[in-house]
């Protein structure tokens, strides 16, 4: 064994110094990342704080129960403004319901086709096209609803108003479709092939295998995709602002103009309600309600996904 030469010693020292430098930097990394992460958390907290603060002020103007259970929403009325949120809530639910009625069956059919029937080649072509739908700006969807879907539906339903819940709901349904297709298809494809083999080997057809084995095994993922899509429909703003109108309606009619929680906020925020007025604070209260809604839905989606996952 030869002794280490001076030059080699130098090199060893350099190597150690470089390693130490890397180590110092490595120790710094988690701190930098923590700061960045904290910023995200702070932003979230800041938004919730603002929302809560202004909502609180709103409730010093208007009684909470009048807001939550009131069936009339007429903030701009000169004589007796009313701030009962139910018409906005019902408007939102109409949109979400129509959207889901369109998106769930179609979306699931697409997902089943893609995961159980389509060859990889077909899947490679169709999936990007469906996902392209997700890239279309919602303003374009809004115009599509207003200038294509509504006139088309009017030929079928003559009583349909220019602004109505039906066509806005249908187009919101098209908008959330890729979400359901994509997430459900992921859930179906994640079901191990061995289950399908087991079912085929017992003499099941492809359809029986899909319905009785694959879908039940993927049900948590499918359900959570539907809830997430519903939450997206509830929060959708542009399409409903353009195509559903701005008339709060406390009824179950789909052919007439409605107003959703989101489109009310747009109406006020783009109008000239003065700072500090009840109307100004009302958008925070409505916004808070919307936040609560989507927050609970997202939590439910997560809960469904973990709780009802079949163990395998």
């Amino acid at each position, binding site marked *: 064994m030869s002794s280490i030469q001076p030059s080699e010693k130098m090199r060893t020292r350099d190597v150690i110094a470089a390693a130490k430098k890397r180590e110092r930097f490595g120790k710094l990394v988690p701190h930098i990342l923590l700061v960045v992460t904290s910023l995200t958390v702070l932003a979230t907290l800041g938004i919730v704080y603002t929302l809560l603060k202004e909502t609180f002020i709103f409730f010093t103007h208007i009684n909470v129960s009048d807001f939550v259970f009131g069936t009339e929403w007429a903030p701009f009325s000169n004589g007796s403004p009313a701030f009962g949120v139910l018409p906005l809530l019902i408007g939102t639910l109409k949109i979400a319901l129509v959207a889901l009625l369109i998106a769930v069956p179609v979306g699931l059919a697409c997902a089943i086709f893609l995961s159980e029937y389509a060859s990889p080649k077909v899947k490679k072509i169709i999936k990007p096209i469906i996902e392209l739908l997700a890239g279309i700006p919602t303003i374009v969807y809004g115009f599509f609803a207003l200038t294509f879907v509504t006139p088309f539906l009017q030929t079928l339903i003559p009583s349909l108003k220019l602004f109505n819940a039906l066509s806005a709901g249908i187009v919101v349904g098209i908008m959330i479709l890729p979400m359901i297709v994509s997430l459900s298809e992921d859930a179906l494809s994640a079901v191990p092939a*061995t*289950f399908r*083999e087991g079912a*085929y080997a*017992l*003499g099941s057809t492809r359809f029986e295998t899909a319905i009785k084995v694959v879908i039940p095994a993927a049900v948590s993922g499918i359900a959570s995709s539907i809830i997430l899509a519903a939450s997206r429909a509830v929060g959708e703003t542009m399409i409903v602002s353009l195509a559903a109108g701005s008339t709060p309606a406390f009824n179950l009619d789909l052919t007439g103009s409605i107003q959703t929680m989101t489109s009310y906020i747009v109406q006020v925020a783009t109008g000239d309600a003065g700072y500090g007025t009840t109307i100004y604070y009302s958008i925070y209260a409505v916004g808070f309600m919307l936040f609560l809604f989507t927050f609970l839905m997202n939590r439910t989606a997560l809960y469904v996904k973990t709780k009802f996952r079949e163990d*395998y």
Partner: protein
Amino acid sequence: MTLIKDRKEKIGLHVMKNENWKKPVYETNGLNVWYGTSHALKNIDLTINEKEVTAIIGPSGCGKSTYLKTLNRMVETARDVHISGNVTFMGNAILGKAMPVELLRSKVGMVFQKPNPFPKSIYENVAFGPRIHGIRNKVMLDVIVEDSLRKAALWDEVKDRLHKSAYGLSGGQQQRLCIARCLAIDPEVILMDEPTSALDPVSTHKVEELIATIKNDVTIAIVTHNMQQASRISDRTAFFLNGEIVECDRTSTLFSTPEDSRTNDYINGRFG
């Protein structure tokens, strides 16, 4: 009484040993299977007899699994598969459009290498096959489930947890559940593709015991890479090599006095 019974059994055994007395369940003539351009099975001629255990042995990649999967046409689920030749099941041609695969598979159960119960309850796993074949009656399903689980020697272990997830069972129990799931469709044949290779020795032993009992009711074709297993449980053994059948004979004959030197080398562990 016992004497008569013993004698009957002895006579029975004697008759069983007579090859010609056996009815063939599967007859394979000139079977070729290609995956794309790779020729996986070459001119296979093989007969599987009723109520016997036929073991298919051979080194990895010799085509033994492919052959087994051809028997219930699961091989067609792979991509780019071409099949030629003739396979009959109980006298009926099964390849091509000759027979709907669902019909064939409703008479032929399959047990896979890794236990693959459905993510459902134990009961639902066993009831799955009868249900898709049209049995809706609850009492009838109960009877089938209990009967199948008893035949699979699993009833006592699971009777108190029938409606719990199958995934709460151990690997060996899961595999016996998969066998029960096959038995529930009252198959003529059960194909087993290395059914114990993912199991511990105790579970393996139980599955082997199970095979020994159910072979009175059902024909079994089993692929195994474990030659001791083949010699323990099978009546006949076919040795596959590079997609061809080298030799097929009674198990005792094949393991004691193989005709082909390659068989001799393989069973003595010189390769594979």
